[in-house]
Each structure stands twice: as structure tokens, then as C-alpha cells.
């Protein structure tokens, strides 16, 4: 069998050499094997430069093999879709994959953008803040945007299935490495439901590539056995290829499970998980070291080199130098030598190492140099050698690979999402979270532990605590130790602008120096000024080194410097997965009127007003909106129309204290409302701003029906309930939202009473017996019936309510009319214009987040109230009493149109830019009045009646005169008919 690529070993690893996989890299055909990640396959095929850095377009090779890799961003098209930007190590290799570099032009290997490197002396931290402000940022923006970024979406629709799922478990174990598996094993037999989530395709974590023997078995066999045991235990599950992406309050987690087939990622499941307890076994990632030209392709983390050799059967280079500050590097050297790679030297920053390692190195003939510092690299696109300063002098080594081991960074992100505070551990040289969120425990690398025996012990203790049982015995472990880590130091004898800290964002030691010089000494400021750790890798390999340099430069300890905030997600997840099935009509819950079918039969044109509501009706005499709206308005003004107002809120407030309770919410005193009466008012929030408006009907003693605005019923009911429970818990009042139980059909117009009479209600509907702002209850052929005589149009109007199951029957009965004719169906647009002619406010259109009752003409009502109501105090504050406030007034066109949203320009201004003094809240051509009208919130509007103002909207100006907001029947004669 022929092996592909130049770097694949003849044997070794967990790939299946009997199953070759073809893929392309920048159009070039390549081959890997089942079990390869994209990164391992590319490396095996000899790909050295995978992309370019963000700013200087320096060539970038693979530094690591997972989410921590700052360099290997690629775009991938598999059989199921296109991923514009992902790290190669996070993508399993699949047949037919098309992989491209996402940086560099014309290619990642030869990038013209690398000329940016010539400007390196000028492109230090913050250069864009200082240089691209003149003459205008917009001059530079297109160039900068083209030159930067990682990947481009291509607009194609993916066939990758996405599914959402919610799940609740007793214990979530994050990670199925040795620590996570041991924790899960400790929970077997506990009866608890357990979910183990592992982001890799296989459980085992570092046991897949580290040498270990547990309970007499090879580590990997031990891991496989436990995984099988977990799967076989009822109530326990292990999800591989599953990223625990975020942790939220009350132990809610976001997990993304990738379902992978032979052709790529076929589907993803977005799991929202609740866990009563959590065992965090997320492990740690390796940290690079700081030295001159440390960003060159060929420099890899030592652990990644071990994994390439032992998990993927890849030898990344022929001649390897290892530079290390701990024993990880030594283990890599031994693994490499064993794999046939010539290990040129081990360079240890420490003065000594474990005797056992030293003896092994000697036996293998590997030269060892202590207290070594790399001062120069011989490298262009590929590493060729390096210069090392040692206590005994300068030495040069030829090599094509450099493995670096600078210590460990625990993956504490999830705990930090929940507010756990990272604390610097000076002995371990890493941030850990000693105090975990309630119900959480941690084990393994995430705690800073580097001993496998200790990690397994921690896990079993955590499992025992979770299951409230005795801990199982810790298995017998044979595994190499990683030893202590030397302190992170500023590299000496090398220029700061040659030492890379953040490889993705091109942040160098010299950039940290600039930031410190300019007093950006807070860690959060350093991050934002230099972009340190702001890349797609979220600074996993760069943050700690950057903070160490900040500490060094400011004479502080790392513990004093602190660390930046970790926020969800821990790694990028697909937007399509977040969206799931939320597309088309299912993007958000839709609400339908109970007589929806009738409106559709009548030819309604629907709009989403929170509910699907008829905007206007197609009819033979009205094929366009303007004509229809004018005819619908005319019907109401001269004859009669019917309008479906079923969405209006209906909240029952009952009990001995109901009247006093309601009075606390509304500006008008609802306590004085008599049975059979209705009152309109507004309710305020505590800031004195109008929160809602509507009518309240008193249906009987201790029985009220509040009518909040459409779409606000649930919020108002909750508002009532919140105040009842928190401020007036002893109040004898109950709240029930019955909005959808009742349909409400409004009949409006001079002949409204005649149409109501069609129902033959069992109560007197004569003008004398049933007056404006009254309510009656009765029945319509035995069906419960409520009729309120209120008006939103300025005409005689009845709102007729029956249980919603009769909505269609009621609407159709009313629509048939009487002998004198049939009413016209009225849509929302006509309805809103009718109320505009009358000057009634439409909440949310004619009010905003600052509008109080005084501004809409209710000052007298406020002044009249002697007792307290919510928001009253705020109305006495200077801000509320200011003369400068915007007040609601009417506008009549002098020239041109009055369009909602138009700005009211300050006196003397004819066109922007200039000061504006308000805006048009509603506007239309009034068919009743024959000219454009509007409502507007204008500064000092009440005192400016008669003044002409200039309106500006969408590049056009018009003139209007400020008037009273009531344009139609100001004496309310039509309401009294």
C-alpha cells in the first residue's frame, strides 16, 4: 500500500489505512485516511503554510491541532455545506472535501499582502487609531476590510440538517478525557442521569496519544472500556463530537453535537441542557514560548507533535529541536526519536530536568542544553535552523521543526461564563478557578493537575460527592510526569518586535511595550488596544504570555494584572445551527385572530402587528390599498364598518380590593368606576412614562375587565401580578388574562346601533339606556355577550365580544347587515387613520420612551388625582416639568405631505444638518378632511399652536402648521348619537 504525502509514517496512529479519503487543498488533490483530522491530513501531505497572519500577512503553519490553534483557519466545503472559516484541527477529514486557505493572495504560500511587513515599524499597536482618522476612516475602510478577515460566506444554502433539543440531566461531565471518563465511571450505578460531552470524535482525550497504563491496560483500551460501560448503563450517555459551548445561569448549557458521516458534517444538534451538577473535566492546552521569530511555520506545540506522531501517524518534520520549560518537551523528544525523527537537541529553559528524562535522553543520544534561549531563527517560509544562546556560548542547530512547551493553560472558560474568578497560581504558572459555581466540581487538567493518577483521583472524588457515595478506588496508573514549569520570562537579548505573542492578530512584545508606554496597563485596555487575544482562537495560546509580559513591564505580578473576561461561546458555532428550524413562518410564534378564516375569504391583505391582522380588504371597488383604505374610512364616517379587534387585551381583575388595586396603575381614578361603566386612561411605569393605555370596564362589584393594547395583554397581566406579589401581597385581588377567550368585533359608524340590533341582544341598546363609555353583559341566542360602547374612530361604536369559538359566526352575522345594507369590513390602516383624524393616540406610535401623560394632554387628569399611582412621583421631578419636553400636537399640511418619522426642523432651518425639535408620530392624507394631517411630538408644542414648521423626511421638506391634535368632531357630538 502506498502512503500519501511525504510525512505520513508507515505505521502508528489510530487512522484506518485501509480507508483512504480524497480531498483537495487549494484545488490540489490530496489523500488522507479515516480517522484523520483535516489538520493531520494536510500536515501529512506536506502542507507547511496554511495561511497568513492578520496584519503583516506573515506565513503561518500549524501550531496546534484543536480550537487553540491561532493559525490554521481554512474554508471547507463538504457534501453537506460550506464553512467559510474553521480551524483545520476542528474538522474531521471527509471524502471529497474542498479545502482552501482563507488568507493570502494570490495564495497563502505567495502572498502579495506580505508587503505589509515592510511597514512593520509603523504598524505598531494602536496605529489605526492614530493614523486612519484623517481625512476620514471611510477612505481606509474598504482597503483594510479587503486585506483582513478570515473567510467569506458564499451565500449557498447548506443541506446540513440542524435540530434543536432541550435536555435535563442530573450530572453533566464536560470532557471525556481520562478525568471525565473516570468521573463518569464513578457515577455508574448511582442511578443519576449523566451526560458526558466530548468535543473530539473519540473519547479518551490525551490517552489517544500519551503513553499511559491504567489498571494494567493501555490507556486507550481503558478509555474505550469505560466508554462502552457508560453507553451500556441506563440513564448515562456519552456524546462525542459535542462541544459544550456556553454555560449560563442556573446551570443551563449550550452544546453543539456534530453528526459526522463519510462525507462531512451531515447535521448538527443544538442542545440546551440543564444540569443539576457539573463535573468540569475540560482539560488544558499547551502554551508556546516567547523567543525571537517564534511565529515561523515549523514551530509547533510539543503536545501537538506527540499527537501527530501517535494519534495520526504523521511525522511533521525530519529534524526536530525541542524547546521546553517543563517535561512535556522531553516526552515529545522521546516520541519523535521513537518515530524516526532525528531530535537535534532539547533546549530546556530550566537549569535542570528530571533525572529519569535526562538519562533517557542520554541513552537516545539526544543533546540537551539547559538555560537555553533562542535568539534567532533561520527561516523564510520554512524553518531551516536556529541560533541558541546558552550559558556556555552561542550554538546553531539545523532543523525543520521546532516543538515548544511553555506550560499549560487550563480550559476554565465555562466556569468563568458562570462568574467564577480565575486566580493565578504562581507555582503552577497558570490561571485556575479555585472557587467553582454552586453544584460544580472540577478534575484533571482544568484544575492545573498534570499527574494522571491525581486527575483520576480527583474525578472519582467528584463523582462520589455528586452521587453521595463512597469514592471508588483510584486505578493503578503508570504514566510519565510532566514536572514543574519554569516562570514565564521576557526573552532576553532579542528585539521585542521579533517576539510574537498573539500569532493570529500579529501582536508582538513590542506592541505590549507600546501599550504600557501609553498607559494601557489594565488588562482589558491592553486587549482592546493591541487586539491581544481577540482572534478566533480567543487567545488560548497568547493570553497568559501577554499578561506575563504586561506584568513584567509594569513591575507587577501576574496575579495583580488579572485576566480578561471569558464570554460565550468557547468556540465558534454555525449560525445555521443556532437558527435550527426557525425559518420561514416558523421564525417566531405567529398569532391568528379567531375569525382569521373569514378575513381570508374576504380578501384581506395581512400585516403582522404582533398578530396577523387584515391591513385592508381587496374588493371589486378597491383593488389597491389607497382606494380600499379611503373607501373603508368613508364607510365608517358615513354608514357603518366592522373591524376585528379581538387582539385587544382582556385582563380580569377581581376581588374585594380590585378597584383600589387598579387605581394604583392608571392615571385616572378607577376606584370611582361604577358597574356598567367604562373609563379610558393610561398607565405609567415608575419613571412616569406611559406604559400602556386602554379602557377599563366595571362588569360588577369587585369585577373589572382591563383592556390593554393588542400584544401587550400578557405583559400588562404580568405587570399587575408582579406588583401584586411584590408590593401589595396582602391585597385581596386576583388577575386572570382571558384575552383569547373572547373575540371582539367593533361596529363603528352612524348606523352602528342598527347593526348591533341585528344580534337582538337581551338588553336595551337605545341611546338613552346605553351611553357612550358604558358596558353591558347579556346573551346572543344563549351565547355570553359583552358589548362596550367605546370609540377609537370618533364615531358611534360598539365593541361586541363573544367566546372566540363563535368569532366567525359573529363576524359573518354582523357583515350581513340589515335591510338598509351591509357594513364594510375595515382593516388596520383605515382604523388607524380614523383615530388619527380624531386625535386619539396610538401607543408606541404617538408615544416613545420619554412620553408622559402631560405630554399627551392629560395634565388636568394628573393634577386632579390626589391619591398615589405608579409613576406619579416621577411626574413631579424637574425633568418631567421641563418646558422643553416634546408635546403631542396636531399638524396640518401647508405644502407637501406629512409623513410619519419626518423630523421637525428648528425655526429658521430649511434643511439638515440642523437642530430638530421633534418628529411626526403619525401622518396621512385625510379623506374626510381632504388634506394631509399628522400628529407630532414637538418641543413646547402646546405653546406653539398656529406656528408653521418645516418637516424633513427622506430628502424632502414640507411645511405644516401646528394645531390641536383633534381634527374631527372636536365637540364629540358624534359619540353622543
Amino acid at each position, binding site marked *: 500500500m502506498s502512503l500519501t504525502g511525504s510525512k505520513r509514517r508507515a505505521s502508528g496512529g489510530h487512522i484506518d489505512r485501509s480507508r483512504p479519503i480524497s480531498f483537495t487543498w487549494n484545488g490540489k488533490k490530496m489523500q488522507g485516511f479515516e480517522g484523520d483530522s483535516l489538520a493531520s491530513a494536510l500536515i501529512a501531505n506536506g502542507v507547511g503554510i496554511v495561511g497568513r497572519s492578520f496584519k503583516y500577512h506573515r506565513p503561518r503553519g500549524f501550531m496546534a491541532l484543536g480550537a487553540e490553534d491561532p493559525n490554521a483557519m481554512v474554508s471547507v466545503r463538504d457534501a453537506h455545506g460550506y464553512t467559510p472559516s474553521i480551524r483545520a484541527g476542528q474538522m474531521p477529514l471527509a471524502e471529497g472535501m474542498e479545502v482552501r486557505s482563507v488568507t493570502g493572495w494570490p495564495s497563502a504560500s505567495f502572498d502579495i499582502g506580505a508587503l505589509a511587513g515592510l511597514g512593520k515599524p509603523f504598524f505598531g499597536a494602536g496605529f489605526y487609531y492614530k493614523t486612519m482618522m484623517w481625512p476620514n476612516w471611510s477612505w481606509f475602510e474598504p482597503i483594510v476590510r479587503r486585506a483582513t478577515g478570515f473567510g467569506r460566506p458564499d451565500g449557498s444554502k447548506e443541506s446540513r*440538517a440542524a*435540530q*434543536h*433539543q*432541550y*435536555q*435535563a*440531566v*442530573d450530572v453533566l461531565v464536560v470532557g471525556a478525557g481520562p478525568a471525565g471518563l473516570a468521573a463518569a465511571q464513578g457515577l455508574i450505578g448511582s442511578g443519576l*442521569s449523566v451526560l458526558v460531552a466530548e468535543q473530539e470524535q473519540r473519547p479518551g482525550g490525551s490517552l489517544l496519544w500519551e503513553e499511559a497504563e491504567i489498571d494494567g491496560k493501555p490507556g486507550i483500551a481503558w478509555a474505550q472500556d469505560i466508554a462502552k460501560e457508560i453507553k451500556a448503563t441506563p*440513564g448515562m450517555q456519552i456524546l462525542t463530537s459535542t462541544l459544550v459551548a456556553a454555560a449560563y445561569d442556573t446551570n443551563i448549557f449550550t452544546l453543539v453535537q456534530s*453528526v459526522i*458521516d463519510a462525507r462531512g458534517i*451531515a*447535521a448538527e*444538534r443544538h442542545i*440546551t441542557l*440543564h444540569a443539576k451538577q457539573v463535573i468540569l473535566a475540560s482539560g488544558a492546552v499547551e502554551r508556546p514560548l516567547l523567543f525571537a521569530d517564534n511565529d515561523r511555520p515549523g514551530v509547533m506545540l510539543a503536545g501537538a507533535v506527540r499527537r501527530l506522531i501517535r494519534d495520526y501517524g504523521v511525522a511533521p518534520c525530519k529534524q526536530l529541536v525541542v524547546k521546553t520549560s517543563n517535561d512535556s518537551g522531553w516526552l515529545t523528544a522521546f516520541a519523535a526519536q521513537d518515530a524516526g525523527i532525528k531530535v537535534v537537541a532539547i533546549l530546556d529553559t530550566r537549569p535542570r530536568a528530571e533525572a529519569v528524562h535526562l538519562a533517557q535522553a542520554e541513552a537516545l543520544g539526544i543533546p540537551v542544553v539547559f538555560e537555553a534561549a533562542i535568539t534567532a531563527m533561520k527561516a523564510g517560509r520554512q524553518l531551516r535552523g536556529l541560533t541558541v544562546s546558552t550559558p556556555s556560548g552561542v550554538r546553531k542547530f539545523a532543523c525543520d521543526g521546532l516543538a515548544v512547551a511553555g506550560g499549560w493553560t487550563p480550559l476554565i472558560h465555562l466556569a468563568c461564563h458562570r462568574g467564577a474568578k480565575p486566580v493565578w497560581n504562581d507555582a503552577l504558572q497558570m490561571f485556575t478557578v479555585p472557587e467553582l459555581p454552586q453544584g460544580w466540581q472540577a478534575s484533571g487538567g482544568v484544575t492545573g493537575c498534570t499527574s494522571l493518577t491525581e486527575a483520576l483521583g480527583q474525578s472519582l472524588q467528584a463523582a462520589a460527592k455528586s452521587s453521595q457515595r463512597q469514592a471508588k478506588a483510584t486505578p493503578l496508573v503508570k504514566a510519565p510526569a510532566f514536572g514543574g514549569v519554569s516562570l514565564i520570562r521576557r526573552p532576553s537579548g532579542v528585539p521585542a518586535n521579533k517576539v510574537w505573542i498573539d500569532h493570529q492578530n500579529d501582536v508582538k512584545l513590542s506592541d505590549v511595550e507600546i501599550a504600557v508606554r501609553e498607559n494601557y496597563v489594565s488588562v482589558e485596555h491592553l486587549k482592546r488596544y493591541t487586539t491581544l487575544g481577540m482572534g478566533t482562537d480567543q487567545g488560548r495560546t497568547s493570553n497568559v504570555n501577554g499578561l506575563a509580559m504586561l506584568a513584567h513591564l509594569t513591575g507587577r505580578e501576574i496575579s495583580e494584572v488579572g485576566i480578561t473576561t471569558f464570554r460565550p461561546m468557547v468556540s465558534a458555532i454555525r449560525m445555521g445551527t443556532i437558527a435550527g*428550524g426557525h425559518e420561514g*413562518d*416558523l421564525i*417566531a*410564534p*405567529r*398569532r*391568528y*385572530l*379567531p375569525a382569521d*378564516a373569514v378575513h381570508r375569504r374576504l380578501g384581506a391583505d395581512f400585516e403582522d402587528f404582533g*398578530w396577523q391582522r387584515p391591513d385592508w380588504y381587496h374588493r371589486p371597488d378597491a383593488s389597491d390599498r389607497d382606494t380600499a383604505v379611503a373607501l373603508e374610512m368613508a364607510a365608517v364616517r358615513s354608514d357603518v364598518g366592522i373591524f376585528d379587534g379581538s387582539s385587544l387585551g382582556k385582563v*380580569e381583575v*377581581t*376581588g*374585594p*380590593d*380590585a378597584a383600589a388595586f387598579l387605581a394604583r396603575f392608571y392615571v385616572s381614578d378607577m376606584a370611582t368606576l361604577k358597574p356598567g361603566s367604562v373609563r379610558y386612561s393610561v398607565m405609567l411605569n415608575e419613571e412616569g412614562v406611559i406604559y400602556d393605555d386602554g379602557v377599563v370596564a366595571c362588569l360588577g*362589584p*369587585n*369585577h373589572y375587565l382591563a383592556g390593554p393594547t393588542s400584544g401587550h395583554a400578557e405583559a400588562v397581566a404580568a405587570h399587575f401580578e408582579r406588583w401584586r406579589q411584590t408590593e401589595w401581597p396582602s*391585597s*385581596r385581588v*386576583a388577575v*386572570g*388574562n*382571558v*384575552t*383569547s*377567550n*373572547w373575540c371582539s368585533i367593533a361596529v363603528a359608524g352612524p348606523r352602528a346601533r342598527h347593526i348591533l340590533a341585528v344580534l337582538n341582544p337581551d338588553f336595551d341598546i337605545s341611546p338613552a339606556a346605553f351611553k357612550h363609555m358604558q358596558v353591558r353583559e347579556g346573551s*346572543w*341566542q344563549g*351565547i*355570553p355577550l359583552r358589548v362596550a360602547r367605546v370609540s377609537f374612530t370618533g364615531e358611534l361604536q360598539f365593541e361586541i365580544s363573544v*367566546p*372566540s*369559538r*363563535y368569532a*366567525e*359566526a359573529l363576524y359573518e*352575522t354582523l357583515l350581513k347587515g340589515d335591510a338598509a345594507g351591509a357594513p364594510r369590513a375595515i382593516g388596520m390602516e383605515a382604523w388607524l387613520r380614523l383615530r388619527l383624524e380624531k386625535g386619539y393616540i396610538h401607543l408606541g406610535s404617538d408615544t416613545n420612551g420619554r412620553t408622559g401623560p402631560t405630554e399627551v394632554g392629560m395634565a388636568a387628569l394628573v393634577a386632579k388625582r390626589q391619591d398615589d399611582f405608579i409613576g406619579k412621583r416621577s411626574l413631579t421631578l424637574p425633568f418631567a416639568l421641563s418646558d422643553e419636553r416634546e408635546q403631542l400636537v396636531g399638524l396640518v399640511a401647508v405644502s407637501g405631505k406629512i409623513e410619519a418619522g419626518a423630523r421637525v426642523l428648528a425655526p429658521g432651518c430649511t434643511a439638515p444638518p440642523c437642530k430638530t425639535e421633534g418628529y411626526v408620530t403619525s401622518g396621512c392624507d385625510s379623506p374626510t378632511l381632504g388634506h394631509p394631517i399628522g400628529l407630532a411630538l414637538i418641543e413646547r408644542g402646546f405653546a406653539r399652536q398656529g406656528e408653521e414648521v418645516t418637516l424633513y423626511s427622506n430628502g424632502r421638506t414640507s411645511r405644516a402648521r401646528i394645531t390641536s391634535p383633534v381634527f374631527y368632531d372636536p365637540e364629540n357630538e358624534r359619540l353622543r348619537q
Partner: protein
Amino acid sequence: MSILAKSAFGNLHGSSHALASVHRHDIHDRADLAAVLVVATDDDAAAELASIGLTVPTGAGPMVAQDGLQAIWLSPRSWVIQCAPEAEMALVARINAAFDDRRITASLFGDHLAWIEISGADPQALLRRGGFVSLDAGGIAPGSAKRTLVAEVNVILCHIEPGRLLAGVERSRARYFVDWLKQAAKEPSPAF
């Protein structure tokens, strides 16, 4: 003249109607069910209701069945009592007559909620595509009910018996909810 009563799905009120047969599940419009909302001003309302012969649960979870009624706990001072449509008005009148000071109030609720029955392999698993259903790993126990959010819609879920679940959905959102159910219950991608 007869006045037709229609369910949220346009079916004649008073009987059960099949809405959809989806992957391993059937969905029915239970227009043969109505309900009454009972709200109270005091914490001892359950005892007061018992005094007129109505037993309601005093805590979350198990439903209480009595004389063709099924009482569901919503909060310490509110319940939904499921009943036949023809019993709805009489039940409201009975409660309101007993508590004329309105310290306990019954309201017609049969049209506020659309009752949707989901039966089949695992209705709770289906609903878990849109919400937790329950934070207990075992889900809602048979004979129990609870209010929760599914697909961003407030629902009252009643676990009638294994494989049968009743969802009380606010009427205006019932069509959306069933559309969502159909989408969620589609034959899953072979990848899953």
C-alpha cells in the same frame, strides 16, 4: 338560526379531530374539551373550593380528577379546570355564585386554550425539540401537569398516560404551535 362554534383550527367545536399524523406521532384537535380559569385572592382558596365540592391540587404536579373535571394547578392561587364544553358555563356560574365577593373568580377559559393531544412513541421527546418540558430528567410524570414554554409558546402540558400528552395552547398561537410540531416531528435526518 344555529350558530356554529369553531375550534382554533376551524373544526366544529365539541368533538376531537385529527390534525396531523407525523413521524411516530398523531396530533389531534381536542375541541371536545373546554376549561374554566379559577383565580383567588387568598391562599386558602383550595379549602374554600372544597367547601363547595370542588377539589383542586394544592401544589404543582399531579392533576386532580373529579366528576368529569380535571383540575390543574397553575400557581398557589390559580387553577385551570378542564371540563366538557357543555359543562363550562355551569361551572363558572356555580363558583361565582358561591363567592359573590369575588374572592374566588371563575372565568370562561374554554376558548382561551386550544387543547392539542399528541400521542405516539414519545410525545415529551418531541416537545423537547422546543423546550425543556421539565427540568426533572424523567420529564412530567403520568397524571401530572405543568405550565412551560415550548417553541416560545406558553403551554399547559398534561401527561395523561404514557404515550399521550395534552397541550393547552393559547388559542391565537395554536396554529403556529401545530405547524411547529409538524416541523419538529418530521422524519429526522438520517444523520441523527
